């Protein structure tokens, strides 16, 4: 009885393996996408990924922020994900099995610090004694602490709270917080309800602290289905091209995906920097397999900052961040 069971199981396994070999195709692909305004929404809306991967069950999962995405990756819940540079630095340092394959977006004023107009906050120094919110571990939390440090303001002189973007919007409407650094589409709700922008992430980029989101793939998936990683990159590149070439139609898509008025969607779009795929292979972004670009520098400095904040145990050598960035798939798609 037992023997027969084992034999059947072995046969079934063999058959399944053979099938997997023959097709070399994942049954299901799960894409975790961040709840913000970028071309991933276009790719999703137009079904570009499904077009690249016929017969594959494609599942999109919306993730609130970098911290949740890290957990999803650590829990092996997604095949592809998106991460801002601080969570990426955390993931790379903690040796999560992922590689960065694509620039999802550069963050300009789509992320910003909003302050309550009636509180007379004109500089970061005025935040003393106030309640400030940011999603901990995200790009904006990183920029908040970085900006406070640059202006010589002690972060312990104010109350800094960890809230998810949607909770920030709710807390703002209730009047529980005086300032918050977070992103669209929720940022707008705060601005429209007695808020004004004090500083944007784009301004911080000019000061030498660029923030961005990078598309990542699970190592196991990339090893098993390398051609599907290329298909993913290709679909996302098509989405980016569509965004750059058809801004009006894109705005309509964003408005529909995020249930926003068209005007708001248009404004939010211009606050997000989309990088054409061939440009992503230049020095300012991913660089090439032979010579990695400035994204590595950003990762090193972000990780260094997080180590000083005691959020990371130690700073890894630069080479580890270089291996994390893998432009090879994009190079094939672009045709270099």
């Amino acid at each position, binding site marked *: 009885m037992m023997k027969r069971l084992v034999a059947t199981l072995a046969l079934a396994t063999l058959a399944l393996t053979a099938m997997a070999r023959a097709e070399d195709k994942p049954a299901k692909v799960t894409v975790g996408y961040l709840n913000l305004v970028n071309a991933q929404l276009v790719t999703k809306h137009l079904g570009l990924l499904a077009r690249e991967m016929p017969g594959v069950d494609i599942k999109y999962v919306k993730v609130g922020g970098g911290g949740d995405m890290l957990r999803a990756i650590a829990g092996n819940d997604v095949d592809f994900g998106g991460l801002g540079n601080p969570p990426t630095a955390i993931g790379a340092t903690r040796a999560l099995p992922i590689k960065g394959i694509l620039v999802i977006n550069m963050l300009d004023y789509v992320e910003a610090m909003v302050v309550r107009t009636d509180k007379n906050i004109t500089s970061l120094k005025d935040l003393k004694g106030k309640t400030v919110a940011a999603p901990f571990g995200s790009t904006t939390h990183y920029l908040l602490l970085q900006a406070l440090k640059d202006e010589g303001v002690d972060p*312990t002189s104010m109350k800094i709270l960890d809230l998810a973007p949607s909770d920030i919007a709710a807390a703002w409407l209730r009047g529980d917080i005086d300032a918050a650094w977070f992103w669209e589409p929720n940022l707008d709700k705060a601005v429209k309800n007695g808020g004004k922008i004090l500083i944007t992430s784009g301004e911080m980029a000019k000061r030498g602290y660029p923030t961005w989101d990078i598309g990542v793939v699970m190592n196991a998936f990339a090893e098993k289905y390398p051609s599907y990683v290329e298909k993913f990159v290709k679909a996302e590149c098509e989405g980016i091209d569509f965004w750059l070439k058809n801004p009006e139609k894109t705005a309509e898509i964003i408005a529909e995906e995020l249930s926003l008025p068209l005007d708001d969607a248009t404004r939010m779009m211009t606050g997000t920097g989309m990088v054409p795929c061939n440009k992503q292979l230049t020095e300012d972004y991913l660089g090439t397999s032979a010579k990695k670009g400035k994204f590595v520098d950003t990762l090193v400095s972000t990780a260094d900052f997080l180590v000083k904040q005691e959020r990371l145990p130690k700073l890894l050598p630069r080479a580890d961040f270089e291996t994390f960035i893998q432009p090879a798939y994009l190079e094939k798609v672009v045709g270099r």
Partner: protein
Amino acid sequence: MSVEASPMAIPISADRTRRSTLRLRLPKVSRSVLLSSLTIAVLLATWTIVTEMGWANELFLPKPQAVWAAFIKTMTRGYQGATLLQHLGASLYRILTAFALACLIGIPLGVLMGVSRNARALLNPLIEFYRPLPPLGLYTLLVMWLGIGESSKLSLLFLAGLPGIVISTIQAVTSVDPVYVRAAQSLGATRRHLLFHVYLPAAGPLILAGMRISLGFTYTVLVAAEIVAASAGIGWMIWDAAKFLLSDVVIMGLIVLGLTGVVLDLMMRGIAKLLMPWA
């Protein structure tokens, strides 16, 4: 004991009986302690072996030494601006306040619902409806109503603790032997006398069991309560450390949380023994 009590048995071998009682008893106590220690030892040994042999990814299961180091570091230097004791204090304050409120409201409510059928019919729909609601779903609403401060956290913990205590108090009161009640009534007891001298003493042990369960429920929602806009608390520390994948801090926090739960439970049992020696 019964052997000693019997006058027939004494002349035969009082000495031997006492010795055998001793022999039977002492090992019994130390045996359960021994078995419990064995479980802990096996767990620790497995943990050590698995991590030392490199069978587990250190990201998911750090070595016991790493967790101990995280404990020492958090005790002395703190985690993100507060030491372990401060985190623990913040959490215990929340838990104990909410639990005390749940007892203060839950026990009288339970007694009322247990004694009066009308009260039970009136209040049952409310209790039965919200009892199975998942705390996080409830929490979103609580945050919108009460804000991100302490009141929403305390309310969530309170609401998690309340139904357990109400339901077991009802159970306790309705299962009081009616003979006690009738006996007291025939001796001229008033409602007040009945409540304090019959219902509460007789139902005490079961109410206490409900309190212990309810404290457990309060614990289960602690992390959820501290996710939103806390900057101290063991639950917050666990949640925050998970964001940065600091699994040593996560595991340390869980162990500390578990141990405080055990200590609180022991304390409740001790108090119960003092207050209700008949239980």
